[in-house]
């Protein structure tokens, strides 16, 4: 995650004096406590029962529920499909634009930010209106969510891949490779994609995190994904919902930490253009 990058936040040591440093420490501790309260509470609520300090009963209950596994699998499937579709759409398009038609880059970039401005709840309103009129059967399939997830992730995935390509000198790479006799496919597979590994990985992680947490579209288009399942059991089994929430928050954190490692390890320091690439994941 770009925002974890601390290099641009220099501590202004001249302003720090012993007189006020305890104020900051108090602020830090209060912030940390408040960050952790809901998490600790959901863990303790989800993994305990009156009289039993630690139990996995609530999870076992969920495991026996016939709707749990299909929901989870549907979310994982959607995450994989949306990620593959995003890469299949963006990598060729952006390679084309960078190598052949940089003139058109602003057009694509402008379009890629539009979903950032359109709330998911507004997109689902427009989508159901449009597709019910044009192709009534389309929204019935759960896989109809994939293209919308690709669109919702576009501001994140586009920027990651675009930044990765900008950091490379693609034109030189391309002509060097072709002048050594490599075909276009060979160049792509052996020279360009290996250099884009970090960018592709961070785009994929962002897309996966977004899809696994997405609720508005899935619920309003009546598909049962993992978040939809959680809301369904929330009323009847609050402990199971709390346990699942705790686990899925931890899961999201693992993805985001992997993301920050992936971007930090990439040789190219990200430009300020990508600063906000990680915002708005998993919440709509």
């Amino acid at each position, binding site marked *: 995650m770009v*925002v974890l990058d601390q290099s*641009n*936040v220099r501590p202004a040591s001249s*302003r*720090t004096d012993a007189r006020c440093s305890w104020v*900051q*420490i108090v*602020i*830090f501790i209060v912030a*940390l406590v*408040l*960050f952790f309260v809901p*998490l600790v*509470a*959901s863990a303790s*609520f989800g993994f305990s029962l009156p009289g039993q300090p630690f139990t996995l009963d609530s999870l076992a209950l969920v495991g026996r529920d016939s709707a749990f596994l299909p929901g989870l699998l549907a979310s994982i499937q959607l995450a994989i499909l949306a990620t593959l579709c995003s890469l299949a*759409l*963006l990598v060729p398009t952006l390679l*084309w634009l960078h190598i052949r*038609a940089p003139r058109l880059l602003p*057009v*694509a970039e*402008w379009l890629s930010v539009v979903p950032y*401005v*359109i*709330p998911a*709840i*507004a*997109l*689902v309103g*427009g*989508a159901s209106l*449009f*597709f019910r*009129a044009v192709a009534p059967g389309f929204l019935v399939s759960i896989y109809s969510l994939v293209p919308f997830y*690709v*669109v919702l992730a576009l501001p994140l995935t586009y920027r990651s891949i675009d930044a990765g390509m900008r950091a490379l000198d693609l034109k030189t790479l391309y002509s060097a490779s072709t002048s050594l006799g490599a075909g276009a496919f060979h160049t792509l597979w052996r020279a360009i994609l290996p250099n884009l590994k970090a960018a592709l990985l961070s785009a994929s992680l962002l897309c996966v995190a977004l899809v696994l947490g997405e609720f*508005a579209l899935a619920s*309003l288009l*009546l598909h049962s994904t993992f*978040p939809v399942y*959680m*809301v369904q059991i*929330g009323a009847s089994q*609050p402990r199971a*919902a*709390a346990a*699942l*929430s*705790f686990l*899925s*928050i931890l899961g999201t954190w693992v993805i*985001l930490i992997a993301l920050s490692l992936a971007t930090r390890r990439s040789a190219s320091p990200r430009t*300020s253009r990508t600063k*906000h690439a*990680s915002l708005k*994941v*998993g*919440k*709509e």
Partner: protein
Amino acid sequence: MTTVSDSPSDIASAEAQPSAQPTAAPAEKAGRRPRNLSRLIDWLGLLPFLAFVGVFLVAPIVVNVWTSLTPKGSFSFDAIGKLFAPQYVDAFASTINLSVVTAVAGGILGLVLAWALVTADRPRWLRSLVLSFSALASQMGGVPLAFAFIAAVGAQGSITVMLRDSTGWDLSDNIRLSSFWGLALVYLYFQVPLMTVLILPAFGALKKQWSEAAMSLGASRFQYLRDVVVPIMWPAVAGSLLLLFANSFSAYATAYALGGSQLNLVPMLIGFFVSGNVMLDESFGAALVTGMIAIVVAALSLRSLLERKSRRWLS
């Protein structure tokens, strides 16, 4: 939107060109493609992307706006006008209210946290721990966050029960999570760290020389703040507040999972409309969506204008 509607006509005109080309072609140097053909090929590579975004993003929005403006097949503002019925004005007002409250409160607290992060470097591990968790918490939201809060301060939540057992005071009687203030409390969980994360680069860009220059010219701390920091920082701060506003205005999952569907909020109304729980005419549902898009687009456009302004100093 203009670029999209322009592009097909661009392609069409480029397509029309080559047929008129043969007469001009001999004049071109052999082996050099005519300019128009090359342009056409440039666009061809972008075509799959344009088609995808066109079908799954632009068309739904355009159709939605179109439907809201043509309630009975002809152009009129009837549907948009219905938004001004008291019930819906109230929905927009309370959504804006919620967004302003959480943006301003989150903004102030986020600024305090950012200030602490920038000025403190003593316990380094504590500072970087807070920074990392701010980044993580700013990304939270949706269903899991809602249930985490229900587990903490809901009617049967851990903290509620703990307080009830030890003091007899019932927290959940005073803060109901499905109420306006309950929702605001939960939103603050991600709004505060989001503000911190957004504003930190601006804080970091304040040059140390500026404060030294001001102090050596005899300025007091307050004068430095008033005459240097505030004029430089305000566009960045205002821009971040606008993002927080839009963030909370468009939140649906968190509010829904908290039981906020009893609240008269715009995202909830749109949800009712889409899932078909309420009998409404199509054009009015579309008008609700159009109204929401208009507000979010206005906030974020203003933000990008302010960002341009703040880039002059903070780059």
